[in-house]
């Protein structure tokens, strides 16, 4: 909703991935594309349809901030400097688009994580900077309250 959000939290931050959009006004969102020929929804911007091969008619749209946990893994071993354990999650967004990310604000134990549970997308400053000291806005999933 343009004008409704307080943008002070995202000011000066770069998007962690190209499909995370930080508008000048309004809240950040994940961008998708939809094929006008076959109606398939993709994460991110794209020129051609991977499903039907259509070369035009791909239109950008904001994806939903709600969805359902499809599957997950609890990652207990990673590379040096990466905090474990964490939950790697595949989420199907309402209205189309599938995205991978960290599921937070949940106990990382199999008995606590239910496939099919409703989750929401939240946006926060990433706990990492790049070599030039730039800061980034990232997204996470959390159980829907």
């Amino acid at each position: 909703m343009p004008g409704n959000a307080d943008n002070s939290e995202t000011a000066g931050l770069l998007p962690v991935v190209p499909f995370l959009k930080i508008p000048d006004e309004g809240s950040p969102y994940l961008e998708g594309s939809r094929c006008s020929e076959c109606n398939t929804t993709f994460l991110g911007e794209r020129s051609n349809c991977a499903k039907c091969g259509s070369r035009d008619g791909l239109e950008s749209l904001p994806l939903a901030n709600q969805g359902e946990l499809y599957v997950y893994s609890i990652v207990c071993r990673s590379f040096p400097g990466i905090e474990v354990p964490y939950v790697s999650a595949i989420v199907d967004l309402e209205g189309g688009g599938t995205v991978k990310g960290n599921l937070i604000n949940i106990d990382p134990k199999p008995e606590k994580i239910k496939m099919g549970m409703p989750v929401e997308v939240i946006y926060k400053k990433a706990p990492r900077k790049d070599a030039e000291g730039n800061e980034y806005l990232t997204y996470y999933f959390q159980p829907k309250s």
Partner: protein
Amino acid sequence: MSDVYVIGIDMIKFGRFPETSVPKLGATAAHLALDDAGLTINDMQALYSGNLGQAGAMVGQRILAEIGQTGVPVVNCANACATGATAFREGWMSIKAGVYDMVLCVGTEQMGKGLLGGGGGGKGIPTEGLLGSGTMPAVFAEAGMEHQRKYGTTFEQFAKVSVKNHHHSTLNPKAMYQIETPLETVMGAEMISYPNTKLMCSVNVDGAAAAVICSEEKARQLGKLDRAVRVKASVLTSDPYQERNLQMPDVNTCTQRAAKSAYEMAGVGPDDIDLVELHDCFATAEILHYGNLGLGKPEDAGRMVDEGETALGGRIPVNVSGGLLSKGHPLGATGIANIYEISTHLRGEAGERQVEGARFGMTHVIGLGSACAIHILEKVD
């Protein structure tokens, strides 16, 4: 079009050989396969070489520099974990097409230890552990959790795959490990990415395997049909569009399609297959492929491993070599090494782990991203 025959095939014992080089590993396997065929490099009309780690570095030519620069055409193949099988299939196609009548196929890999996958792009900040995980254990854990979601497959059932394949490898002197690993050891090992513990992840090893393949006429002319193995089907697929596969690699659909084509090409069905070497890069993966390859219903996969149907002596033995989980997984060599395993059973030369009376065998590999290669091999009477 002539049928294609394997007339010489072998692999080195998989292990860790940091002191040697990729071309030297490939040269050793090439010599073993040529010796098995009773031929020399001078008899080969082309070389199809599979290697992933040095894909830009002309590994095939460097193998010939080790064993004989005969000036024949060399094709270097890279196709993730389907690399070796792709090199074999390129050779198969050249004979099918009638361009050559006898060629050498070699798969080679030298690996480091540790996690594969999860490397970020060049720009910005690394996203591993921030936007989920791209490591192979996590990717295949998520693929396994999809099976759990659909069919209720349990952590214990996934773990039993690893117990089985480690047991099989105790009978295979060419496997990296010959160690029994009971269920509590597998389940109690360090958790890497739930539900895959360390002992449910394939072993990164160095290895090489090679095959001499030829036309029927050539095999007859050379008097090599007695120990030959007939290639009844060779199929390669990529992953068709699926709604999640840009975020979650799909190893299922490309396998299902490859299996269907392979059965049609070979004129056989799953019930005719006596043993299978399939792509158990993680214990979770093996469970998926029982259904994908038609060895049973997808919902029965957990039960199949519970009841020993896929163990040596069971209804359809799977990964009698020890599989990638215990024989080891040198990426570019795996696709030819599993053709070696099946050929050895069809020749009746597999010793203690022999699947008795084996007539048809299947090999399957998946290169994530994705490529699936399947071969069906037949004993020659």
